[in-house]
């Protein structure tokens, strides 16, 4: 078995807790060491901070449109330099295999959570960027988790998120829309994305879904910047 990132041989060291795992290890231990797991930080989004709750989350708490949502974000890794190169490979070189290789880590991370009856909502891409890239990375992650996926949302314009300033991102509204009317009464939702930066995308979609009577909304992203 070769590591999907660095192409070195993966050296399986048998230990008790690795016996009978069905997932094949696709990423070597060396590459995984470059990534830093999210631990502690802000209770709502996991951002590295000394406060209990970070400034961004405080903004969402105080904003009258969003304060009832109480979206809690779960992320796997911090968006460090190494993660940046990985995301670049995935998104801009189209190396979907790297994303698929995180299957084992994602499953292991989600194992303790009771997610059985929840519905996944991957963040959609704009039509042209989907054509350009060929895949939606959020949808790929959702497919890995292997729960029912809701794709009733589309992105109406293509103002590049990563090229805007923080506040501008939050204020810019009405970017995501429903394709048709929905009733999500008594349903729990997990919003799936690749990176969580300020929470603008997640909150906007959450707002949309809570208007459709969704009960409990949280979000899962691979990286937390």
């Amino acid at each position, binding site marked *: 078995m070769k590591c999907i990132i660095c192409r070195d041989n*993966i*050296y*399986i*060291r*048998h230990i*008790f807790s690795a*016996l009978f795992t*069905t997932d*094949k290890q696709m990423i070597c231990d060396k590459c995984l060491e470059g990534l830093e797991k999210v631990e502690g930080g802000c209770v709502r989004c996991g951002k590295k901070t000394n406060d209990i709750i970070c400034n961004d989350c405080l903004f969402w708490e105080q904003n009258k449109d969003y304060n009832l949502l109480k979206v809690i974000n779960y992320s796997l890794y911090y968006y460090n330099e190494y993660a940046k190169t990985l995301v670049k490979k995935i998104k801009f070189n189209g190396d979907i295999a790297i994303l698929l290789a995180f299957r084992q880590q994602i499953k292991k991370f989600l194992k303790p959570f009771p997610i059985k009856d929840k519905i996944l909502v991957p963040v959609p891409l704009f039509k042209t960027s989907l054509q350009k890239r060929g895949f939606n990375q959020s949808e790929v992650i959702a497919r890995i988790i292997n729960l029912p996926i809701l794709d009733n949302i589309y992105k109406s314009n293509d103002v590049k998120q990563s090229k805007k300033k923080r506040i501008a991102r939050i204020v810019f509204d009405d970017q995501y829309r429903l394709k048709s009317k929905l009733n999500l009464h008594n349903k729990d939702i997990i919003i799936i994305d690749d990176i969580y930066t300020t929470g603008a995308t997640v909150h906007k979609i959450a707002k949309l879904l809570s208007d459709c009577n969704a009960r409990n909304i949280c979000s899962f992203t691979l990286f937390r910047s």
Partner: protein
Amino acid sequence: MESGLRHLKKSKFLFIVNNCIYCLMAVALVAFLVSSPHILIIILLLVLLYRLYIKDSTLFMITLIMMLIYFISYQCQVKSITSNDNSDIITCTIDNIPVEGPKSIRFYCKETNNRFLVYYTNINAKQLKLGDVIYFKSSSYLVKNNTVPNQFNYRKYLEAEKISFQLSTSEITVLTATNRIDYKLINYLYNYYQDSKFSSYLLSVIIGHKKALDEDFRNNTQILNISHLFVVSGFHVGFLYFVFMFLFKHLHFSKELSRKITLFILVMFLIVNAFAVSILRAILLIFGIEIKNQYRLPIDNTDILSIIACICIIINPFSLQNPGFILSYLITLILFLSRKIIQSNQILVSSFKINFVAQVFSLPIIANFSFSYNFFSIILAPFLNLLYTLVIFPLIILGLLIKSLSNDLALIFVYYEKIISYLSNIDFLLFNVGAFTITRTVIYYYLLVIIFRKLEQRSIAYFKIILLIIITLFYHKLSIIDEVSFIDVGQGDSIYIKSNIQGCKALIDTGGSFTQSPGENVANYLKSTQTTQLDYLFITHTDIDHAGDYQYILKHFKVNTVVFNAYDDSELQRQIEKEAILKRINILKVKAYNKVDCGDLSFYIFNPLKKNNTVNDNSLVLFLIFNGDKYLFMGDATSDLINLPNIESIDFLKLSHHGSKYQTSEEFLAKYHFKYAIISVGKNYYNHPAEELLLLLEKNQLIYYRTDTHGTISIKYYLKKRIIRFCQP
């Protein structure tokens, strides 16, 4: 395209190699299943195969193929063992060093296709040596299975050594000596070191001559669980490897050369030790690791070990019947698997952890030898191992190199033996843990693996640890299975009645013989069921075959009361009474129509009514209602003496006097409706059991079981459900 395909195949191959530990598990489970079929092992195997099927289909197929290869190998070799001509004149070659016992010299002997275990009863004869071609006349007989449950199965052990027959002879003619170099080398070493002062240590370490060590010392090392240090084992191979590599490095040899020389020396060591299991394992492992390092293969040590174990098991499909084989591979595998737990910066801490892991995982196998386990050894083992590594083993090597020094060094060994003997006498943590049956062993290892998985994630599974401790210490004591066991003591009686719920443990007679000591079997069986105290020991009468081995019972168990019949006044009875008084055991003398209460059970006595002429007729006759079944234990009494009021049918009858025709009358069998009869009988000169009686039993539609053909007969009650189990030879 093609190179890509090759790459894919190569990585698939690597994947299989990296996962061959599962192949090993499957093959080992099949091997266990073949030697002792049990529903739990089948379930485990199915679960394993299902998990593998989910994991990877190729791996699953490879595992199936390996299992098939094992099965074919088993089928081929099991034939070669059973098909054997009973030829009377045997010419064969001695292929291990003869071991002198008190009554006979014992050795393995190799014919062209067969191997035998030979007992040579003429001790004073000319010494036999390894490699002699000998010629003798003997009748061969099959080695028997254990007839008492939970005891060591010598037949299966010998099967692992590819020995099927046992021969006994008093006259051997030596024809020639074989010209094999390895035999000559071993003989040379044996003779060279034999006259040295501490030859036993040297011989045990250099050529694995097992029986050379002092009996007491060996027992003491077994109690402290360090006996592996005094037979050549993987430990010695590893030690030698590092010593030689270190030595050659400082002699400025090139790395390549020093490695070659070391490996050559190790191979010599293997040959001298006649390819002993643990040394073969250790040396193959070292070879594997060397190859892995040479070509930088991405394989784990566990993979190398698994491949070696798989091959060994397939080559000799009976090898898992040798507990030494299991121990050797299991401990190495477990130590590799628990690397994450063991690793520590301090040497002493990691040494302690290694010993702890090894002891915990070897406990079920070691406990099955003596049914007791000294938990003190867990604390002691790291220090004793350190002492051995730093002091004793270097001294042994010094003695090997410079023979003249051995007289001076012997003094140190005297002190060492004293220390070992002192430590082994500390018994405050010596527990009788009983036998590890298959069910218990599976539960034990299952819990252990879960606990270790948790430990790797740095959390402690308290509940499971407590459960494990309970299973280790109290498994049989908490058992709800009631039993009446007619233990096979050859010609003689011994019946064990146990009920944890009704609070009674009683033994009727101890067995005994002039030539053997079957009482030891009784004691071992009781120990294997975690019995430490007996409420009652009934001595029906004091014939040697009923009470001869009383000392084994009184020595090993805390007996509350000994019950005699009121008219017993033999020499043996006085001896037992004297010993009982010394040990502050109550003595009870009973006669007909007395009642003995044992917990919730009651033993009703129906004989002796008066003093009879013969010892046999004075024998106690006991009646017991146990879980709804009626039992009548006749001892050796004549049936006409017995009168059972208000009783019409009886389920189990222990036939009087080992099935003699004079003690059981037709009227007696007709009067009470018996269902089963049990005959406690062995090899004898009195024609017990009598043909006439057996016909009479069949005529009265009794089902009968004999301890000589059925082995120990255990009538067990699983919550009132009765199951009769045998332990057939």
